[in-house]
């Protein structure tokens, strides 16, 4: 049968393109809406999860782990090669940092903290850091030797505000289980927030020179935090995968050369690790969560496809007489079968288009949607309801629409709809032409 004949058959069987309305058309609309609704959660989950992962990862990388770290292997006599690393092609900045642990006291409380001893340039020379870290009190000022800048949740726990005096306890291990405690006094210069609780409840910043004195060598982590001009093309499964990896091949190779040059320049006394390797466990857990969610949502699409199959089977039963007539006029079983597969594909295309568009619309406005849901639920419950507790995630979900996953979801939906059409197609092909005589 000609292609136009097959399309005409499929479209009319679905009740579309005809002035005659009825069960066929409403069944078609129901099936399309079902597929569309099933695709919406998948698209939203992909976009929102990617947005959240991207937002969290970028905060970690830009404010915490740097793009690349050169970590001292333990020999404190190493000369920190700041200038040499800063001169490597592709490197934007290289800054010395010492990290350690301590117990921070105020008059009202105490908190275990991660001490980050950095230079003032960490803040003043890096606009990206300033983009991600918000000063909520005082200033990010480490120019005074006693200055300390607190993460907002530590400040809240200690009841500390700028100008308050705090004591920081660090411990030098002496071997054989003995410890030498050391208490240092600091004055709160500022309180900052990254908008991500995991960071805000741990970090305190102290001046580098002071940190080198109070954080014992034995427990310190000395590093050079390096930022490069194209960090996210470094090999990672978050931003640099699939087609994106192919498209960014040249950039990836350039950054790989930068990594090699950093390793060579740093020399044998330093480990060099990129941002993904530094927090791999955390990022893999993000990816796993997102993938699991996607799989669950894909199952919803499969359920919708079962509904498409049921709708088409009902259509076959309803159109048995018509199929017999077609068979009697010479339409082959194969053509009848193809018409029903095409009908499934038409439902799939219409549903996937509608679903992808709706999903993108919701994903693009997810922050407003969540606010609206919170307002509605709060109104119904008569109390404040937090659907999305920003204390534990981000203040706002950063959504950058990525079309590749949407295309993948649409393709998956079309495939599933096509498969859903196979059973009814087979059933339609089995209708014998002599059934026309049994009316």
């Amino acid at each position, binding site marked *: *049968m000609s292609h136009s004949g097959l399309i005409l058959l499929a479209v009319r069987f679905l009740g579309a393109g*005809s002035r005659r309305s009825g069960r066929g058309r409403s069944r078609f609309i129901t099936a399309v809406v079902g597929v569309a609704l099933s695709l919406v959660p998948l698209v939203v989950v992909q976009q929102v999860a990617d947005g959240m992962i991207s937002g969290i990862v970028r905060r970690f990388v830009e404010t915490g782990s740097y793009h690349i770290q050169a970590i001292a292997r333990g020999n404190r006599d190493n000369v920190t090669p700041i200038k040499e690393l800063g001169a490597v092609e592709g490197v934007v900045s290289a800054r010395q940092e010492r990290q350690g642990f301590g117990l921070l006291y105020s008059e009202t409380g105490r908190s275990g903290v991660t001490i980050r001893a950095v230079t003032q340039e960490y803040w003043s020379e890096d606009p990206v850091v300033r983009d991600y870290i918000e000063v909520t009190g005082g200033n990010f000022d480490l120019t005074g030797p006693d200055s300390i800048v607190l993460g907002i949740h530590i400040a809240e726990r200690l009841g500390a505000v700028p100008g308050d005096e705090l004591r920081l306890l660090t411990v030098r291990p002496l071997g054989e289980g003995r410890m030498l405690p050391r208490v240092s006094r600091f004055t709160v210069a500022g309180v900052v927030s990254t908008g991500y609780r995991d960071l805000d409840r741990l970090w305190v910043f102290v001046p580098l020179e002071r940190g080198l004195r109070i954080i014992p060598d034995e427990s310190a982590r000395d590093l050079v935090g390096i930022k490069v001009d194209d960090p996210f093309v470094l090999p990672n499964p978050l931003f640099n995968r699939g087609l994106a990896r192919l498209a960014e091949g040249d950039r990836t190779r350039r950054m790989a050369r930068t990594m090699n040059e950093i390793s060579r320049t740093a020399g044998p006394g330093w480990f060099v690790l990129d941002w993904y390797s530094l927090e791999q466990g955390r990022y893999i857990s993000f990816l796993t969560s997102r993938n699991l969610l996607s799989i669950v949502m894909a199952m919803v699409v499969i359920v919708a496809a079962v509904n498409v199959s049921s709708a088409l089977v009902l259509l076959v039963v309803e159109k048995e007489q018509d199929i017999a*007539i077609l068979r009697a006029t*010479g339409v082959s079983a194969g053509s009848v079968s193809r018409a029903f597969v095409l009908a499934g594909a038409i439902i799939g295309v219409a549903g996937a288009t509608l679903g992808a568009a709706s999903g993108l619309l919701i994903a693009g406005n997810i922050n407003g949607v969540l606010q609206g849901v919170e307002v509605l639920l709060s109104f119904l419950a008569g109390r404040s309801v937090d659907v999305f507790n920003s204390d534990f995630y981000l203040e706002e979900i950063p959504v950058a629409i990525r079309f590749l996953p949407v295309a993948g979801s649409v393709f998956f939906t079309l495939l599933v709809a096509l498969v859903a059409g196979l059973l009814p197609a087979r059933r339609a092909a089995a209708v014998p032409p002599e059934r026309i005589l049994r009316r």
Partner: protein
Amino acid sequence: MRAPHSDSGLPVRVGGLAKSFPNGQERLHILRNVDFSVEQNGRLAIVGQSGSGKSTILSLVAGLDLPDSGSILVGDDEVTTLAGTGLDGYRSRTVGLVFQFHYLLRDFTALENVMLPAMVAGRRRTEIRDDARELLQEVGLEGRKDHLPAQLSGGERQRVALARALINRPPLLLADEPTGNLDDTNSRHVEDMLFDVVERRRRTLILVTHNRELARRTGTVLRLEGGCLIPD
């Protein structure tokens, strides 16, 4: 099997045709030993009581069903041996079917109903459309071409069915009680149209009816009785 767009009919030779259907534990023998022949462009009517097996003969000749035994030769083709695409092609190009009930597809317009069998045959859409319009004009329904079957009267639907049966210019026209569902006026109209078209287009016609007056218009009438055909 390809006998497209014939300008004349085909001879039909049927011999020793038998057909039975399951009936509980036993079989019901509808046709026992049916023999008949129709010459090229000839006309034949088969009459008989309801349930005697008249429609079964037509379904066998049309290739809609298989006989238990016997031979059906249409032109040079043995219908009982056809299968798959060969059988589809035979139904599409060699046979035009008109039933007691119009069997038009409800969701398709009159024009589309007429065009569909030709689309099956893989002809060009513009050529099909022209032919379908011409046929609808021939049966007096050009002005109703965009109407759905539900918007047509019984006689009009049957005329559309006649046009559909002729769209592929089949050499053999099989009509099963073509006016059985119509009132007298419409019956006469459709009968006249059927014989007129068969005459002008020079087709072979096998007509099944219990209407003896209609049967006599073919010139040759056989009666089906006890599973066998005898001269009426």
